[in-house]
């Protein structure tokens, strides 16, 4: 575990990687079928979010804004804008859920969204997500917790072999799907909240983009408390699992900081064996583990001589750094978007909460960057290798199908990193 550098704070962010809480909440609501994320603020936040996610996923994105203006900002405590929004949305479409979340503007105003929500008779979940606190990861987690608190019906019994997955925000749609399939191999029926694997996975279909087109059903969120097991992935999601257990204390909770690399997947498999009572995992799991062992050996030479910078959301950092470290990749610098208790556990020599200007100052410390697409300019300027991960990636397509998880995805991840490292070295020689 490295040293966490907590430098005297700069008065600004330069080339930020941090993203906002309302965006995280909006994305969480997009993992619920037929949902309309409704951002309570002035129009721009929702518009930026829509463009941001559209470009990352190459998919139409459903989102609306309560369109607070300078006039309503002063006169209204939120009632008018929210009620009008709900009315205007429901005259056009019939959402199964409206995901109301705030922004810095309406939080500063002090709007009582809870009160307003109680006067609205359309299925609605409300959540406070000011953008002057937290970040993408916490916004997503807050929305999930709000859905559990406000929608899930309490239960006292559990249904055997039902399992709920609570993935953190940085898991891409295919990774959620792989995870569902993986636990299914052990005989569990899995739900994921949120479930981007069926909404933003990029499929051809008639999607008008007026509501989310896929994701977990609202009815299934209501009955989540019947799960025998809840699995949270990422420190940010631990609280959500606790919220779910409050709905049914008979439920068992297993937490995983991440699911990248051999050790993390082994831990998941051990839990699944224990919970399922199986002696042996299914043959494909056994096979993939062997492939990952081989991949670790095949890549260790390239990765072992490579110094990395990894930047991203804390939960994502934890996984990426661990996976690299298993093959000897040295993470010299890890830059987190925001503070997290998890940073203590990130496998890196130096860990800081910062931005890409900080990355630029440490430019002699690393050869290869794993970062969102904003790292590209820096990589080009300083002849670094770059492997794009995290939000946003606007330069590449296929983000929704990038799989870094479990035995299988870890193989792909290691190969990609090793190839990127070798390519970078070839370029440097030229």
């Amino acid at each position: 575990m490295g040293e966490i550098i907590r430098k005297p704070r700069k008065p600004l962010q330069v080339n930020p990687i941090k993203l906002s809480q309302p965006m995280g909440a909006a994305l969480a609501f997009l993992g619920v079928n037929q949902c309309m994320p409704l951002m309570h603020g002035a129009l721009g936040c929702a518009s930026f979010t829509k463009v941001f996610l559209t470009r990352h996923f190459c998919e139409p994105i459903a989102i609306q804004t309560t369109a607070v203006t300078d006039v309503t900002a002063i006169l209204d405590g939120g009632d008018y804008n929210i009620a009008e929004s709900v009315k205007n949305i429901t005259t056009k479409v019939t959402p199964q859920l409206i995901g109301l979340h705030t922004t810095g503007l309406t939080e500063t105003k002090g709007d009582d969204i809870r009160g307003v929500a109680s006067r609205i008779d359309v299925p609605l979940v409300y959540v406070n997500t000011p953008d002057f606190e937290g970040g993408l990861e916490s916004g997503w987690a807050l929305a999930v917790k709000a859905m559990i608190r406000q929608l899930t019906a309490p239960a006292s019994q559990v249904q055997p072999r039902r399992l709920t997955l609570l993935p953190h925000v940085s898991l891409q749609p295919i990774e959620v799907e792989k995870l569902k399939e993986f636990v299914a191999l052990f005989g569990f029926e899995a739900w994921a909240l949120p479930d981007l694997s069926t909404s933003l996975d990029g499929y051809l279909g008639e999607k008008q983009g007026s509501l989310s087109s896929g994701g977990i059903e609202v009815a299934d969120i209501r009955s989540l408390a019947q799960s025998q097991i809840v699995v949270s992935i990422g420190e940010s999601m631990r609280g959500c699992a606790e919220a779910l257990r409050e709905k049914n204390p008979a439920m068992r909770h297993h937490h995983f900081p991440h699911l990248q690399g051999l050790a993390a997947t082994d831990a998941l498999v051990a839990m699944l064996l224990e919970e399922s009572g199986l002696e042996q995992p299914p043959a494909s799991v056994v096979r993939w583990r062997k492939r990952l062992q081989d991949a670790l050996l095949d890549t260790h030479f390239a990765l072992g001589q490579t110094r990395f910078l990894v930047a991203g959301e804390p939960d994502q950092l934890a996984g990426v750094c661990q996976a690299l470290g298993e093959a000897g990749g040295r993470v010299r610098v890890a830059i987190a978007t925001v503070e997290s208790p998890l940073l203590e556990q990130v496998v890196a020599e130096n860990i800081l909460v910062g931005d890409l200007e900080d990355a630029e100052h440490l430019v002699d410390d690393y050869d290869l960057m794993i970062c969102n697409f904003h790292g590209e300019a820096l990589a080009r300027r300083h002849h670094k290798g770059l492997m794009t991960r995290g939000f946003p990636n606007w330069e590449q397509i296929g983000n929704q199908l990038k799989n870094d998880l479990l035995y299988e995805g870890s193989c792909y991840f290691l190969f990609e990193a090793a190839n990127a490292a070798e390519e970078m070295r070839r370029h440097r020689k030229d």
Partner: protein
Amino acid sequence: MAKKPKISELLDERACAHSATKKSACNTQTPGATTGGCAFEGAQIALFPFADAAHLVHGPITCLGASWETRATPTSHTGRDLTQMGFTTAVTTNDVVFGGEDKLREAIDYLMEHYAPAAIFVYATCVTALIGDDIDAVCRQAQAKYGIPMVPVHAPGFVGSKNLGSRLGGEAALASLVGTLEPETTTPFDINLIGEYNVTGDMWQYTPLLEELGIRVLATLSGDGRIPAIRSAHRAKLNVIVCAKSLISLTRKMQEQFGIPFISLSFYGKRDTSSGLLAIAEALGDTELLARTRRLIAREEAALDEKLRPYRALFQGKKAILNTGGNKSWSIASALQDLGIEVVATSVRKATEADREKAREYLGEKGILMTNPGAEQARIIDQTRADLLLAGGRSLYTAIKKRIAFIDVNQEKKKSYGGYQGLLNLAEDVKNALENPVFRIVATRAPWEK
């Protein structure tokens, strides 16, 4: 130093095309049924291309975090391209409670120390405007301290739409920059390009032609722009507004203050490019120049026609339907027609009166102006036997179902369609779309579908 312009004054803009018909049409926002960006985004669009200035966004992380490095507006600036950098005070709870002015002041100091910009634009956003941070005062003090322009930009998102924000951005530049520096030299043919942001290098498609004609671009707002240039923009003989109605108020004010006349034009498609060049020459009022321009246009059009000939043969008899918004509804139509493609329908949903008229003018009597393209376009494809749909991503499915070629017009542009040369880029893209078998292949039924 800038005073806050009055919003009501700006909304009542005489030169705004549709303020005559609908009062404050520029600012209607229906909760739960609003699309489009906020005023801050508009200001950002209008001013960020000044690559030698730092753009400091005073607000929480949403405003800049999701929006920096989003627009491809290249610059020839040899120093570090500050347009493609993100600077934000990223205010937190503490700042919201105690005020963000100190942080802003320190951020300005930091920028001066580390990046030595030619100016700093300070953008107010919703939260910092609401808590009443006095960015005017902070800018005034910083300007006195550092002796470079510090430009407060009052376009927090909640004051209105992107268009209004662009206008406010222009106003801020006028109030704090224009007229604060004399140009080193002047020529009789100095012009300013207003509202040209050089997206994907659009501007560079025609500026070499201007140069050849002896027309000098003195300043731009703000494509490939520089701070010293915009500061001396008051010495131009003509303001040329490129495809941006939102900046008419700015040019009108420059006419009042500095006696600079303005014209409004676009450089999309052959016809618009030619008539644009001609309009500039005419406005500069020099017969020699006019003659030169005519010759240049004749030469360029002939050269273009030559290059387009193989495409025209390919596009003969091809019909296209266009479903996009704003000035694209006619500017792309015009460009397609230049390629010899018949544009049978275009969308006028949410179009202004002027855009609608233009669309009618370009499409002719037979052309269909769609008011609800989402519902209409499938039927119109059948009816007109169109070969190509140009629309936003969500219409892709319609094209697949109808088995016709598709071009995503809203996709973030990577190459320019502007000027004469841009037409070749468009021709190549259309050709590739029409020849691509993918739309047919994707539409084949799965083996399990009967």
